[in-house]
């Protein structure tokens, strides 16, 4: 019996849909997202609903997730990070754009056609209390996805036990209800349920932010172990930049539905190119009194503008100290600097004129962006 093996999909998946198993992408890309938009209509009217506007939740986002990679997505509340990953698993329908999973486009698929794909990508939600059915025993919660995988009878029981042990719980927990567990244990059950269908990709929506500090570290370590054992890819959404840094290979910073910066994880913290990223980093208190006292802090003023009527040009210009007239008028292109570091800013920081000259327009640039190349602000040029 193959317990959630790393290469279990080759046999299991070809049966229902041969196409999905075949393409594992020579480029190593597990998921490609191109110009994805998710707009929510705002309705008004007494008799006939008229659409009077849209919430621009995700507005022309493109990225590629590599096999075995962890991509972190950070941003303030309302930046569209949760909408984005819910759309990736097609819990929400995109307004425009393309999502390809292992080379197969999944954007236009029906529920039925999605089934084989959904078995390869699973979601773990923020609140383990709300995402487990309180009336079902753990055994039943795990049995449903196992049945979908085609197991029956004794094998379900055996596999459930194996899953629980894999996430650090005990086999005798199978007969218990979710309320009999602590928050951290419930989150482990959520992870076990996601693993039950042997996914390649797990989308984690704030997986530790509802947990106590001492428990957060346990769950983060568990996720790292599982990734290593099962060669999983993660998309990790969180508002806590220090947790994301610990987990991710690459990090995408979102603001008002747009990508502001995408960077290898370490570089984002050492050398943020977009002013918004520095803002986020500067706002994080450091758990060390002396370093806090030594730090010059610059508090971000203002709040996120409404996504119903987002600012023209660069979306961050209303709060940005470097903003110029150009920023107010023209949406910046996503510029690719060395080491695949992308930033959408007219006046980037932490880059030399030579680096700017060597940079090029990224293919992930939103369609509405202008053709202007980045330049240093007048004052420091």
């Amino acid at each position: 019996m193959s317990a959630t093996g790393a290469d279990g999909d080759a046999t299991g998946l070809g049966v229902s849909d041969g196409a999905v198993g075949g393409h594992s992408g020579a480029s190593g890309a597990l998921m490609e997202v191109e110009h994805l938009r998710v707009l929510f209509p705002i309705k008004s009217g007494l008799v006939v609903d008229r659409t009077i506007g849209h919430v621009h939740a995700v507005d022309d986002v493109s990225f590629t997730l590599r096999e075995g990679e962890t991509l972190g997505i950070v941003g303030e509340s309302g930046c569209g990070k949760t909408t984005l990953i819910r759309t990736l698993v097609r819990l929400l329908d995109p307004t425009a754009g393309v999502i390809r999973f292992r080379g197969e486009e999944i954007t236009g698929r029906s529920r039925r056609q999605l089934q084989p794909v959904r078995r390869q990508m699973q979601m773990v939600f923020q609140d383990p209390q709300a995402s487990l059915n309180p009336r079902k025993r753990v055994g039943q919660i795990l049995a449903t996805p196992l049945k979908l995988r085609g197991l029956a009878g004794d094998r379900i029981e055996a596999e459930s036990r194996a899953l629980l042990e894999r996430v650090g719980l005990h086999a005798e927990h199978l007969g218990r209800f979710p309320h009999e567990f602590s928050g951290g244990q419930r989150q482990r059950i959520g992870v076990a349920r996601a693993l039950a269908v042997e996914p390649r990709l797990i989308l984690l929506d704030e997986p530790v932010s509802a947990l106590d500090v001492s428990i957060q570290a346990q769950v983060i370590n568990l996720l790292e172990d599982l990734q290593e054992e099962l060669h999983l890819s993660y998309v990790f959404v969180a508002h806590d930049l220090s947790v994301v840094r610990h987990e991710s290979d690459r990090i995408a910073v979102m603001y008002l539905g747009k990508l502001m910066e995408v960077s290898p994880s370490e570089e984002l913290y050492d050398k943020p190119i977009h002013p918004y990223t520095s803002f986020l980093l500067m706002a994080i208190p450091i758990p060390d009194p002396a370093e806090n006292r030594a730090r010059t802090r610059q508090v971000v003023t203002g709040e996120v503008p409404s996504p119903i009527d987002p600012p023209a040009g660069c979306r961050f210009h209303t709060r940005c100290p470097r903003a110029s007239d150009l920023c107010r008028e023209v949406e910046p292109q996503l510029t690719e600097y060395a080491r695949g570091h992308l930033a959408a800013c007219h006046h980037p920081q932490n880059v030399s004129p030579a680096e700017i000259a060597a940079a090029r327009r990224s293919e992930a640039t939103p369609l509405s962006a202008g053709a202007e190349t980045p330049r240093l602000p007048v004052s420091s040029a």
Partner: protein
Amino acid sequence: MSEPLLHVEDLRVSFATEDGLVQAVDGVSFEVDRGEVVAIVGESGSGKSVSAMTVMGLTRGPNARIDGVVTLDGQELLKASESQLQRIRGGSIAMVFQDPMSSLNPVYRIGDQIIEQIRTHQPHVSRAQAAERSVELLERVGIPRARERMRSYPHEFSGGMRQRVMIAMALSCSPKVLIADEPTTALDVTIQAQILDELRELREQTRAGIILVTHDLAVVADIADRVIVMYAGRVVEQGTLDELFYDPQHPYTWGLLGSITRIDRDRSKRLPAIPGVPPSLLHPPAGCHFRPRCPHAFGQCMQVPELNARVADAPAHLDRCWLTVEQKRSVRQVDGQIGLASPSAVVS
């Protein structure tokens, strides 16, 4: 300085529940001086919020048993009558809660809610004067177009703005003590930084004492002067900010310090997590409450250690651990940083 502003001595709070007696707070003592920020740190169920709420008289009830002494400027609070407390709450002591949505009344305008609070505590103030003062307060906490915003309802405000309104209300009667219970937990980091700045400024300007209840050690390091670490209803360690971060004496404190992810450190391969889960307060473990999770526990830990000063030259640095200071200093280093060793590494 003469007498401390707020004095809490041997506070004990227990609740009779259907399943048995819950000793939520088991002997907490601390003082808060003017202009000082005292942080109470702990996980859910550690008793940190109950301690703070008891100071406000918010945990009274038929099934609650409260013992100890709490004095504010010489006035005893635990034995104060309900009507005396009404005057104190919102007047001398104000509170800011975690969730600003559920602590504002959704069907009243923001302005009316602040005016009501001012006039309740200062009946001689006219409505117009109270309105003027409300506008000033909203401006002080950084709400733009404050005069217009007086007519807004809570749902028209973002989370950070609502928390600012809560702070404005708390300030309305110039409190001597402000209790902030997880004031930034529900907010984004950028807004958290703004609110912490607000609290810092408030302390400078009004010299109010602040009790900050939080689970976030980074916030503590940012703003607190003294720290109290609670675990399962007991204080396990208390001291100044620097004592606690640079010479922590209790293994639970090491665990907390070690298990937080930090942006200013190389990301180590693994986070040293605290094993196990916090105990149920219905059936707390015998002896030291942290014993079942502590890799350094030994026979003596079956008895409850006193909360004593054990470090030389630090009379106000108290902890509850049987290990000697030398032992502690040698075992608390994990990979060159303070943390809790993994149990397998310690088994002797």
